[in-house]
């Protein structure tokens, strides 16, 4: 049933199923081998196309209009303009510069790399937005990739200085920067980043994750000492060493799952906080995602990926998208007469730099 009305609800309906996504994961993964992984640009495109067309907003599906060739060309450009020069600089430094200078060059390159990662993230989002269409109108991400990268770099420094306590603010600030410049056609989203709007238990949940994480790291380190992993060269018996390494990884997995439980509260709170800060037109977004939703998702996804020997990766990503989409709440209708097409068609090729850093978040 399709309404030809001027005001539409933005209720989301996500109908992807595991089976077809699993199959997509299998055959696209297999094709990576003969193509030396070059096929990954097309497999990512196919995944997005399928995921988008199975996501309906107000009864009308999203459409992904990107092409594998765009991603491929973006990759080529990024490789020749950034990738190879960086590699050349590293090799040159390693082979020709005296040791202290080599470390200096390495340190500078590392800092530049961090900045580039955030730049790549922005570029990835900008490409994705420009290739996402709803009702014939494209989304658009405005703003500058370079300044986003610089801002993120600054926030990251603050996060390091505060031993991580700035992290929630960093995430919210970056979300504000991105969403505040995102538009549907020529209608801008707005992001309410004010303190009054921060109604989710961001700090309490972060404290749990932070202290909990610290405690787990402590447990892991103590256990490593106890198992004897730090006695390097003590016994050369490979069987015993293997047992110790196995015990370490087993413990790390258990503690990782424990961390999943502790961090889920914070993650859910952050997702809800970001969602409820976003508005478009007269529509307010929100999320009824609960932390046990995330815990269940995380555990089942881990099982899915392990049991399918990695081929279930796409299906796992779909489940993340599906869960978040299905938990989004919308309040109000969108007045379509206020929306015109986005003037800027976005980048002509894909987010090559983002591919180099794998910054599309899997999607």
């Amino acid at each position, binding site marked *: 049933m*399709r*309404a*030809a009305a*001027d005001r539409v609800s933005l209720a989301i309906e996500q109908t992807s199923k595991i089976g077809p996504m699993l199959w997509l994961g299998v055959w696209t*993964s297999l*094709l*990576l*081998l*003969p*193509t*030396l*992984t*070059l*096929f*990954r640009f*097309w497999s990512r495109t196919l995944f997005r196309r399928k995921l988008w*067309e199975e996501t309906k907003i107000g009864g*009308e599906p999203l*459409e992904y*209009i990107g092409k594998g060739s765009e991603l491929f060309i973006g*990759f080529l450009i990024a*490789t020749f303009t950034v*990738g*190879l020069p960086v*590699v050349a600089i590293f*090799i040159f430094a*390693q*082979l*020709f*510069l*005296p*040791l202290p200078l*080599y470390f200096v060059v390495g340190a500078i390159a590392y800092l530049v790399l961090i900045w580039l990662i955030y730049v790549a993230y922005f570029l990835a989002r900008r490409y994705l937005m420009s290739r996402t*269409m*709803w*009702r*014939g*109108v*494209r989304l658009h991400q405005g703003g500058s990739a370079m300044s986003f990268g610089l801002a993120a770099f600054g926030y990251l420094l603050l996060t390091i200085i505060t031993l991580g306590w700035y992290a929630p603010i960093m995430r919210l600030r970056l979300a504000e920067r991105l969403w505040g410049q995102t538009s*549907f*056609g020529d209608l801008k989203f707005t992001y309410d980043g004010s303190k009054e709007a921060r109604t989710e238990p961001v700090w309490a949940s972060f404290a749990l994750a932070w202290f909990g994480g610290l405690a787990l790291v402590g447990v892991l380190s103590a256990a490593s000492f106890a198992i004897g992993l730090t006695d*390097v*060269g003590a016994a*050369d*018996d*490979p*069987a015993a060493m293997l047992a110790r390494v196995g015990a370490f990884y087993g413990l790390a997995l258990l503690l990782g799952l424990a961390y999943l439980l502790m961090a889920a509260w914070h993650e859910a709170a952050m997702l809800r906080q970001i969602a409820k800060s976003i508005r478009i037109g007269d529509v307010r977004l929100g999320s009824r995602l609960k932390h046990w939703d995330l815990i269940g998702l995380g555990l089942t996804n881990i099982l899915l990926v392990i049991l399918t020997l*990695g081929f279930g990766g796409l299906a796992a990503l779909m489940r993340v998208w599906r869960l978040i989409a299905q938990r989004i709440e919308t309040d109000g209708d969108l007045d*379509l*007469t206020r*929306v*015109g*097409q986005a003037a800027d068609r976005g980048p002509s090729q894909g987010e090559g730099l983002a*591919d*180099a850093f*794998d910054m599309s978040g899997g999607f």
Partner: protein
Amino acid sequence: MAPSAEGEGVAAVWFDGTSPIAKRVTAAAAADGLRIDGQGASRRFAYADLKLIAYGRDEVRLGLRAEPDARLLISAVDAAAIARFAPRLFDRGQARARAGLQMAGLAAAGCGLIALLFIGAPMAAPPLAQATPRTVEAQMGENLAAQVNLVYGACSGPAAEAAAEALAATISRLAAAADPGFPVTVSFVLEDSPNALALPGGGVIITQGLLETLTGPDELTAVLAHEMGHVAARDGMTALYRTLGLGVMLDVLTGGSGIAQQAMVAAGQLADLSHTRAQEARADDYALAALAAAGEDPAALARAFRALQAWEGGDDGPGSPEASDGRLALPEWLSSHPDLDARIARAEAQARPPAAARPPQPDWAVLQQACADTPARRLPPPQ
């Protein structure tokens, strides 16, 4: 009801690409094109202007070539009915065939790249090495030596200097007999396994383990001659180009993706090893010729190999009873140092008696004490 006659319309939805408002239109198919009418929209499209975006179970999406954002949505049932007017437009098979061709093209490109990497890179490495100016190679060698010493703990102090000094005469004799092309310098590192490494530019690194495994100075001379063979052939530079080139290209191509890269690396390793074997055989030949010409004992090369073989099968080596639990014997083509038996047989068969009288040998006691002044490291070096 699906129309059967030309000109009758079916219900469709039209997004004109300038506004998100949907227009309910009637789409009428005729032999020369598609017409849509309704809610202010009245357009005519030739079938060549249209393209198939998606053919779903319930709905078909058509797009306009000239207006990439516009969309026409028709129910699948109705689309089937009007498909007879434009069979090519609604042909899903064609789209699939095109996709198949694209994938085949990519696979071909991938195979070409594989050939380029695993055949081309190793082939390009030796000429690149030969073309590299010697001063450049010398500079690279110095830098690499600094890094190796950082990682593996160079032996220093009077004992190390004395050992290097003890070898000086032997080195100049060998260099005079068979020009290695670079000034050869020897240094020692604290490393338990017996090994010798020829860096680009003429630096030769000898491990303490080698000094403990070999049984006499003549064997060390033979090993030195072998390493000088690598220096003369610029094998270090070749290996650098080959592994750097292969490694960098693989990293760049695969963008750090996991599964495929592991497979590529494994395959790359195999290609790498067979190359090293040819280089080793050539270095053996160089050593035998240089030893004979310098008046040293060529048979010492085979003796050195036997000593190494004894280490591998002995109490300290990888073949030792304690270490051999669960350790499989590697087939020859997987091991980077080919079966020592083969090299011993070859060395013994090819050794000729020395040309001149035996020159004085370096003091073995001094050599074995090369690392005496260097304190042992607490942690073993990274594997």
